[in-house]
């Protein structure tokens, strides 16, 4: 078979070859090259495991089908402390639930001495905007014993604590309102060796700066109970438009009657939220989806 004899590191001119699109038979050529060849028009797939985000619509747009590991993920939102848990809790809950299960399962051979709560990995909250409320987080599925609240005095300390946590391969949620691009780059370099999720919360205007983080999202509260998400940067084609994720805060869901589930009309005197600005990073010509004539 011809495709099997080709060297695995295909040179760029080969990419457009007709052989790649319709292999005569057997596994497709791109399947053999998975992880080594990435076309700009398709989402990158990497060998590193991704954490499902809990939102099918978001997973479909994220490279690897979920929150990537070995990467710093930037979340840009207009106001800190408004929607982080609504967006992150489904993914984090699944991550922590998966950890608790294996330690409970092998009870056959000898009883474990460790307390059941001691087996979970920690989640560091660096410099959160408000006091985390454990009963609410527990209701979201995050074990209280896993949460460590690190409050720092200066932005430099917050960056230091975040970097140390990333280097120790501990999951981090860091609120870094004043981080500069070179500091984010440093965190991203450290993140390359970490297999834990790393989320950096930054203000919305940070989207105008460049950033080394391979995944950047702009998140806003939507009209109703949903979240508006735009992928500012990802390993893949530029994302256009906004994703609408249904995210009712878990604690409030039982209280909602059917009528209240509908998007509430905003009270009149309130000025409508600032018009949705177009994505401030113009997609590069190479990053746009390839349009076949």
């Amino acid at each position, binding site marked *: 078979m011809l495709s099997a004899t080709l060297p695995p590191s295909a040179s760029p001119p080969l990419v457009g070859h007709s052989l790649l699109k319709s292999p005569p038979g057997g596994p497709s050529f791109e399947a053999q090259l998975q992880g080594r060849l990435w076309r700009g028009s398709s989402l990158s797939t990497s060998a590193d495991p991704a954490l499902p985000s809990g939102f099918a619509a978001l997973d479909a747009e994220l490279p690897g089908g979920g929150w990537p590991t070995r990467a710093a993920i930037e979340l840009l939102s207009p*106001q800190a402390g408004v929607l982080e848990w609504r967006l992150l809790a489904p993914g984090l809950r699944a991550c922590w639930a998966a950890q608790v299960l294996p330690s409970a399962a092998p009870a056959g051979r000898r009883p474990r001495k460790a307390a059941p709560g001691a087996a979970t*990995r920690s989640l560091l909250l660096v410099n959160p905007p408000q006091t*985390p409320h454990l009963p609410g987080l527990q209701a979201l599925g995050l074990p209280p014993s896993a949460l460590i609240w690190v409050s720092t005095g200066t932005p430099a300390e917050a960056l230091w*604590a975040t970097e140390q946590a990333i280097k120790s391969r501990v999951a981090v949620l860091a609120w870094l309102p004043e981080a500069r691009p070179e500091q984010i780059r440093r965190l991203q370099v450290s993140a390359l060796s970490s297999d834990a999720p790393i989320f950096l919360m930054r203000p919305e205007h940070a989207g105008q700066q460049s950033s080394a983080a391979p995944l950047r999202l702009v998140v806003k509260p939507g009209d109703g109970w949903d979240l508006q998400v735009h992928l500012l940067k990802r390993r893949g084609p530029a994302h256009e438009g906004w994703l609408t994720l249904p995210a009712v805060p878990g604690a409030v869901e039982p209280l909602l009657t059917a009528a209240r589930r509908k998007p509430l009309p905003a009270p009149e005197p309130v000025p409508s939220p600032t018009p949705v600005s177009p994505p401030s990073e113009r997609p590069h010509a190479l990053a746009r989806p390839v349009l076949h004539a």
Partner: protein
Amino acid sequence: MRWLALCSTPDAPAGDVDALGWLALSFTPRVARLEEAVVAEVSASLRLFGGARALRQKLQAEAALIGLGLGAMAWAPTALAALALARASPAPQHGPLNERLDALPLAALSAAQAHHAMLSRLGCTRLGELRRLPRAALAKRFGPALLAALDRAYGDLPEVHDWLTLPERFDARLELPWRVEHAPVLLHFAETLLRQLCAFLAARHAGVRALRLAWQHDAMRARDVGGSGELCIATADTTRDLRRLTRLLSEHLARTTLAAPAGEISLSTDCVLPLEEASSSLLPGPSDPQERATTNALLERLSVRLGASRVREGRLHEDHRLARMQSWQPWPAPAAAAVRSPPGPQPTWLVEPPQPLRCDAQEQPVYAGQLARISGPHRIEAGWWEGAGGLQTRDYFVYRSATRGLLWVYHERLPDPASAASGWFLHGVFA
């Protein structure tokens, strides 16, 4: 008999040889100090560790792990011969012991080195030439010690050793070569002691949770300064990881100021705890003890650098009052009993202290614009047993703001008549 001679690297501090001996004790109980080296009789342990080569590699790996410099090593059927071969390395590796020893220079055997000048005038430069001299004349000329050492090295006389034993508790002193005025400089010297400690712990298959580094101020100090100072460091779990202890000690020393220059340091530990050896697991899992240890090491460093009250761990309590449901305590917090989850919706962020809100003409709260009521009231009335200060009579509501998300807002049912506040407070956010 298989003797292994271990020399430390030439530039290593003097205490490292003790540490090397303690390290060797984790492989065989027959370890002795012999001049500047450590000799260990390992014939009984060879099978357990999978042969001489595997044992040597394991020893080298252990030494590297605890930061000990391991110099020349040599195998021989007698301790003195092993030492002589280690000193003269590279020495011939194979062949009968007699031939290998015969080729060594006189300096390899301390008893011969003492008479080096006279022997070289006689034309003796190798041990073999020394051994061929007439024995009676040799004993008469140089005393019986030289002949006895020669016979012991060649295995003609039995050897007697003082076996090394481990002290019950670790307490090591180090006199500093110069006066140290800044605490971070002490780390360099404390590392030597930490290496000894780790070797000691390796021999006992144990770890520590608390250490005490003490320093003696020298005589040239101010009148009001005491004679010594000390620093206690504690780890969250039992460990003998040199790198972790060193980093933790460096964080502590960076925040310490010496009252006067120090001339001597000592490291001691009172409590040695058995350490469960980490077995490698087939499947990497969350219960990986290695990972727990790295997390603990991280949190230790954070709480030293940032302050203990800034690295916090939460504990739940059974209470209906929002502010009393949880307490954030300095990490590591004592374990608490499991609690039932509180009724009603719980926000994810708590606004502390509650933020007073203005209200509009309809007595409805206002916060960054109009709010829409989603649910409520959820009445909380508790804390009367704590007196007037603890009593909370509040109606909680879920309000929705266009920009600030879902809010947990309460209204005081019995507002303080003296205050002009509206009685509405923001107490949490459902983020």
